[in-house]
């Protein structure tokens, strides 16, 4: 006899949620997890869930058996090698002597049951590896020792008791579901640790703010938004697996895009296959848009287009620079930014005297910059992330290299850049997509400045354009859902309709106009250039929205205090 397993309900009681999201400055999610039902929402508690996924790690280290045995990390599972008394194990019981602590399984709503008496007995045929899937088959933990009659798995009475207990466990979930409308569950895979851990955490925070703001205003079509977030550890393969898990395992209604072109490249391939629209505000490599995908969208300009402003603004100054050196880290986004620099230097009549890509792990920036200095270019254009940008500025100063202008594809727009480098950051230019002073508006946050202030109020730091672009994507998707009057759970045809809507029309967001081309790239957004002036980022391009004149030429290091 086998016990029927209410698998879905059992799994839902096992989701892990942090006590409170992102009190940590970088939104670090490693806080003591607790087990709660996904459909219960406690008053005052945010709905955002972070689920720790250790399964890949486990699978690699211990093999698939381990994966099955303890998919839910917080559940205390203990293996014991002690031989059990005959009375406790029937003759066909398998070797996995799993003992689970019941007090953590039984959530509120269950009768208090202090005795640790759920001893695992499994059907060997059902679990040939002797393992027990806690997530999907909670009810395979059965009966107190002695209750099972020899030769049988469990007595009918015991089974009845267990089913009753489980029924009580899931009852509050059902009642909660009945009382409140289903949440709109949106999945997000983003880097929270590893090389892009910092940038990814910012994107996660931006989405969290969007979720909180939307929920405060009554949700999307009356349904609260609930984010399900996984950390891809800055690894593409992990990211792809986790997107699959969100779609197939967690059955989320929609997705949002993470950070980093390489990661999003892999992740969007999975979402495309499952026909889930994915809008990313943190990836802009051209390759993302050259795959003929219909469900992938990016709110940032393409990497090669993003740097257009940096070169064009230099075409407007006198004396106009004649030569340029282009260097950049050899990864997808920054390498493409370098290609963009090259393209727009050619169209603006600036000769490229040095072009070099280097590995992200480079330690010796001084030799590189000394070499570039030796070529004596008028301007230096760098394809960068934050770390590369900071290292480059430090090395420029050390080898005393002062070109007439220096521009970065990414980095200086992160407030940390100017805060840490202080005076050395002055007059550095950067490609941007957004500043809070631009006249953009939407119905969720209000103006760009309102978003800027709300973000600061929530996280005590200012948002960068990537946060704004991420939120812009989330708002665009939200507007599409609202316009189609869709309600969760969303079906396949709903997602097709959302995709078509996203292609069909433009959306006004606090990040600016979002209008997707056939390839999913945002074509409505003009490139913006900012410059660090007096420790602040000033918008210097396009001229019509500029809030400061460009400082040119770059003040030589020798003349700075």
């Amino acid at each position, binding site marked *: 006899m086998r016990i029927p397993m209410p698998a879905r309900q059992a799994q839902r009681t096992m989701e892990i949620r942090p006590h409170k999201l992102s009190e*940590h400055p*970088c939104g670090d999610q490693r806080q003591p997890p607790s087990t709660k039902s996904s459909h219960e929402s406690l008053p005052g508690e945010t709905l955002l869930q972070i689920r720790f996924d250790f399964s890949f790690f486990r699978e690699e280290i211990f093999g698939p058996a381990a994966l099955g045995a303890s998919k839910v990390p917080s559940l205390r599972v203990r293996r014991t090698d002690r031989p059990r008394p005959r009375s406790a194990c029937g003759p066909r019981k398998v070797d996995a002597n799993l003992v689970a602590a019941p007090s953590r399984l039984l959530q509120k709503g269950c009768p208090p049951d202090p005795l640790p008496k759920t001893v695992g007995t499994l059907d060997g045929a059902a679990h040939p590896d002797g393992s027990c899937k806690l997530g999907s088959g909670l009810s395979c933990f059965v009966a107190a020792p002695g209750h099972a009659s020899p030769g049988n798995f469990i007595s009918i009475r015991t089974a009845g008791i267990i089913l009753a207990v489980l029924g009580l466990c899931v009852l509050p979930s059902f009642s909660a579901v009945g009382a409140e409308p289903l949440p709109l569950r949106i999945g997000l895979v983003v880097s929270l640790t590893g090389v892009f851990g910092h940038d990814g955490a910012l994107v996660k925070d931006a989405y969290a703010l969007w979720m909180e703001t939307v929920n405060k205003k009554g949700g999307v079509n009356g349904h609260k938004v609930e984010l399900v977030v996984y950390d891809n550890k800055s690894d593409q393969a992990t990211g792809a697996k986790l997107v699959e898990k969100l779609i197939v395992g967690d059955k989320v209604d929609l997705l949002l895009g993470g950070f980093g072109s390489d990661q999003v490249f892999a992740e969007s391939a999975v979402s495309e296959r499952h026909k889930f629209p994915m809008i990313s505000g943190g990836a802009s490599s051209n390759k993302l848009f050259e795959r003929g995908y219909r469900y992938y969208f990016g709110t940032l300009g393409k990497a090669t287009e993003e740097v257009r402003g940096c070169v064009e603004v230099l075409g407007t100054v006198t004396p106009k620079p004649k030569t340029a050196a282009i260097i950049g880290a050899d990864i997808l986004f920054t390498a493409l930014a370098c290609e963009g620099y090259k393209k727009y230097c050619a169209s603006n009549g600036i000769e490229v005297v040095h072009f070099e890509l280097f590995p992200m792990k480079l330690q010796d920036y001084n*030799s590189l910059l000394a070499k570039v200095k*030796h070529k004596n270019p008028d301007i230096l254009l760098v394809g960068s992330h934050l*770390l590369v940008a900071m290292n480059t500025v430090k090395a420029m100063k050390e*080898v005393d290299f002062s070109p007439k202008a220096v521009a970065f594809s990414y980095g200086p727009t992160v407030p940390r850049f100017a805060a*840490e480098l202080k005076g*050395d950051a002055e007059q550095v230019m950067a490609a941007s997509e957004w500043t809070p002073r631009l006249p953009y508006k939407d119905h969720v946050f209000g103006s760009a400045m309102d978003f800027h202030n709300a973000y600061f109020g929530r996280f005590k730091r200012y948002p960068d354009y990537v946060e704004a672009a991420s939120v812009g994507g989330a708002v665009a998707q939200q507007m599409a859902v609202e316009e189609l009057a869709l309600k969760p759970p969303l079906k396949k045809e709903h997602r097709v309709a959302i995709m078509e809507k996203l292609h069909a029309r433009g959306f006004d967001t606090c990040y600016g106009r979002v209008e997707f081309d056939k390839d999913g790239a945002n074509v409505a957004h003009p490139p913006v250039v900012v410059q660090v002036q007096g420790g602040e980022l000033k918008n210097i391009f396009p001229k019509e929205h500029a809030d400061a004149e460009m400082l040119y030429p770059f003040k030589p290091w020798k003349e700075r205090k």
Partner: protein
Amino acid sequence: MEPLFFQALINGLLLGGVYAAYSMGFCLVFGVMGVVNLAHGELIMLGAFTGYWCFALLGVDPYLSAPVACVLLFGFGYLVQKYVINRVIDQPHIMSYLLTFGIHLIIANVALSLWSHDYRSVATTYSGSGLRVWGVNIPWARMVTFWVALLATGVLWFFLAGTETGRAIRATAMDKEMARLMGVDVRETYAITFGIGAAVTGLAGACISPFVVIFPEMGLEYTITAFCVVVLGGMGYMPGALLGGLFLGVAQSMTATYLSAGMSVAITFVILFLMLVFRPTGIVGKGSVA
């Protein structure tokens, strides 16, 4: 052409000084205990953060707070060795690899949750500025670090050669059992050795803080470089760290200047490979081959 060559040479030597400064502790620990300390980079990170926080919170210059880093890291290293690594010191090498790798993860992640993933930088008044001689720039901070490396090598050398504790350390490194018979407390000596290694590393970490970007996950790169430096200089041979560091620094700088920056990373591993195959005892042939 000429100034570029000299600039590359100076860059290489200064970089080598930095490499030597932070590889010395690694070399000492390896030489005495045979432990490849995979948490070495985290000690550098802790030293750099000590310099950073002293500067950010108290306004103390990193070079003045370097002794603080030295003392803190000595205590930390001593305790880690005494209560953690000593437990596996007689086990096969793989155990100490696993253990120090675990320590690396613990320190890095605790630092990550304490100080977040933000990139930090110590912006002193002299950061990036330097001396200009015949068209060659010599940044102050790197030059000071270079001298600290030389000085630390000298002090360590005299400490090991001339003091009671130093002799105990050397005796333990040569023959553990014999040292024990001669009345040396081997475990205590190990703890002191690791403490000294950590102290020198902390000192180096604080010294490099004015010109590197500091963040909790910075350690691993440094561990890898320190390993290369120590292999080049001769494993366990103290002046080898200085020689290996300078050799690697100049090799990388020349490659970056005359070939490409990408090649300079590759050349490190090419040299490492060639050394391990053809000259495993290091440049001057005084390293131990375990």
